[in-house]
């Protein structure tokens, strides 16, 4: 395996959980809801995903357990932020704290257990093509799901009628409500979708990235995903650029250090953040100018009774 191929494979692994979690949050925020609980949903997804895979020996069931955990936790958020119209920022933060605690509780018995790493696709002939073979045809299922998910999300938001309604609700929930669209129902579905994505992103960590469970193993990736959504100006294509750019610079700075490039490592560790922010700000400015934040983002909606 050549160095370039090895680097690209590491980049894809590092970017995938960010892309998964950020795609979910993009849909949530497009519907006008700000869920700051991604980190919490991810870490519970990681604990439950690991548990599922450990007991059944199946990566797929592990991933489904992770998704289920994310959905269950996002349901709590939906009940608070949408049902009771509690402040979204506060309930999102509470969700993260709850998630971190829960994951420790769930995962306490699994520390030190080992599972097999998620199987990678292997198509005779195709996977063996030099350089691109393993990159295109030799990944685990999470990578393909993440790409399919972001394409489907783009199609849904910009090419389907339901997506148009969802965006309309995110921009002006009062008008959408007046037109007869079920604001709370659609927002709840969006929140559950976001939870599923965050749970899957969390499950990716113990199932495919580093196949063991340790409390706190998400290490702030939920917050990075959240930032990516903002910097991508709520657009799926830019989200892909942002997630992969972040992963690429993270891996490249490690390689640069190993190769003895004489830049302080503290600066190099900050590089992924700097580079992602700068590039995403530049593309936002060049194309449309101005931010495209959903206008009703973070506003609670209380239907008139």
């Amino acid at each position, binding site marked *: 395996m050549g160095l370039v191929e*090895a680097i690209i494979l590491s980049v894809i692994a590092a970017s995938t959980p960010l892309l998964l979690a950020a795609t979910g949050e993009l849909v949530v925020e497009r519907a006008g809801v700000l869920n700051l609980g991604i980190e919490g949903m991810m870490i519970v997804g990681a604990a439950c995903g690991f548990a599922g895979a450990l007991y059944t020996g199946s990566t797929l069931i592990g991933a489904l357990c992770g998704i289920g955990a994310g959905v269950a936790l996002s349901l709590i958020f939906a009940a608070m932020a949408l049902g009771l119209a509690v402040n979204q920022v506060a309930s999102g933060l509470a969700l993260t704290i709850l998630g971190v605690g829960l994951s*420790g509780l769930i995962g306490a018995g699994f520390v030190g257990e080992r599972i097999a790493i998620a199987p990678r696709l292997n198509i005779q002939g195709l996977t063996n093509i030099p350089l691109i073979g393993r990159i295109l045809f030799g990944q685990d299922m999470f990578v393909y799901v993440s790409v399919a998910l972001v394409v489907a999300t783009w199609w849904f938001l910009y090419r389907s009628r339901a997506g148009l309604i969802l965006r309309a609700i995110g921009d002006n929930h009062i008008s959408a409500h007046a037109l007869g669209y079920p604001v709370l129902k659609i927002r709840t579905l969006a929140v559950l979708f976001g939870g599923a994505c965050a749970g899957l992103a969390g499950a990716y960590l113990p199932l495919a990235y580093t196949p063991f469970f340790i409390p706190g193993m998400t290490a702030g990736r939920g917050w990075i995903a959240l930032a990516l959504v903002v910097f991508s100006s709520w657009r799926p294509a830019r989200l892909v650029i942002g997630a992969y750019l972040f992963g690429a610079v993270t891996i490249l700075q490690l390689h640069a250090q190993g190769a003895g490039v004489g830049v302080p490592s503290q600066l190099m*560790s900050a590089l992924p953040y700097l580079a992602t922010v700068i590039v995403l700000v530049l593309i936002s400015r060049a194309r449309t100018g101005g931010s495209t934040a959903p206008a009703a983002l973070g506003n609670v909606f209380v239907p008139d009774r």
Partner: protein
Amino acid sequence: MRKTLFAAAAILLASATGLTGASAADKLKVGFIYLGPVGDFGWTHQHNVGREELIKALGDKIETTYLENVAEGPDAERSIEQLVRAGNKLIFTTSFGYMDPTLKVAKKYPNVHFEHATGYKRDKNMATYSARWYQGRYIQGQIAAKMSKKGLLGYIGSFPIPEVVSGINATILGAQSINPNIKVKIIWANTWFDPGKEADAAKALFDQGVDIVMQHTDSPAAVQIASERGALAFGQDSDMIKFGPKTQLTSIIDTWGPYYIERVKAELNGTWKSEDTWGGIETKMFVMAPYTNMPDDVKKMAEDTQAAITKGTLHPFKCPVLAQDGKEVECKGSGHLADGQILGMNFYVKGIDDAIPGK
């Protein structure tokens, strides 16, 4: 208004738990503040193992409490004070960042005794303790030099602080004692704990051609990546053999138990004094995991070195120590660098082809 209500409820709840905790007044109450979760399989896990050994040894005379996941900074001060209010008479705070908060609380409560791990500030009622892990790293360096086919080692650092730098130097000095031409690639993760990033750092090192990885970060990720690659690695803090049965050569295991037992006994006898303890392999402040996955002669060498360090006939920083530029480092100790020089180490030794970040 709602906020104040919540706060009031939280305080009520906290004091209620404090009250129930204070009911058994005849036993000595010993408190612990932990940085991470007890299940982190590294730093905090080992402190908690020490606490469990303490219970095993003195369980009928004491009662222990711990608070986990306590962030360094102002939060720590509140948590330490909470332990004081709950009636703990001896409190161990187990991370460098608790130094100032511990000192502040110690000044406020002169009748309570505090013990802070890995710091340098002390007071009449605040002692410090740490371990000479560099001794173990010297042994690991020797093993690595024997086992490496390419003479190229990989090292994952957390933060470029003296403890980590002295660990790298001790490793290289140990390795050079076997192979004077040994080379090392160093990657700083700039985190103590991020399994994903630690795994990526290990991958990067292997992709760049090293054949053994050692680490000063806390998760077993590097051991696991080495295991996937069929390569060799050293564990950290805990015995990580489970994560690489054919990979782990040995691991420095923090063993706080004997120290905790000794200090609590002193407290029970009324002989507790504030002092600075920097124990090594000779006082079992840490132990080495079994030497595995190596030929018998390498194992014997490692055991001999360990015995020599334990007896005090071998010191990893034996003078003369040459700095990176080849100049001799002033020898302030007797035949080896002084403790202060090791505790504040901010230079690489000769043979490391890299620079300390930020220097």
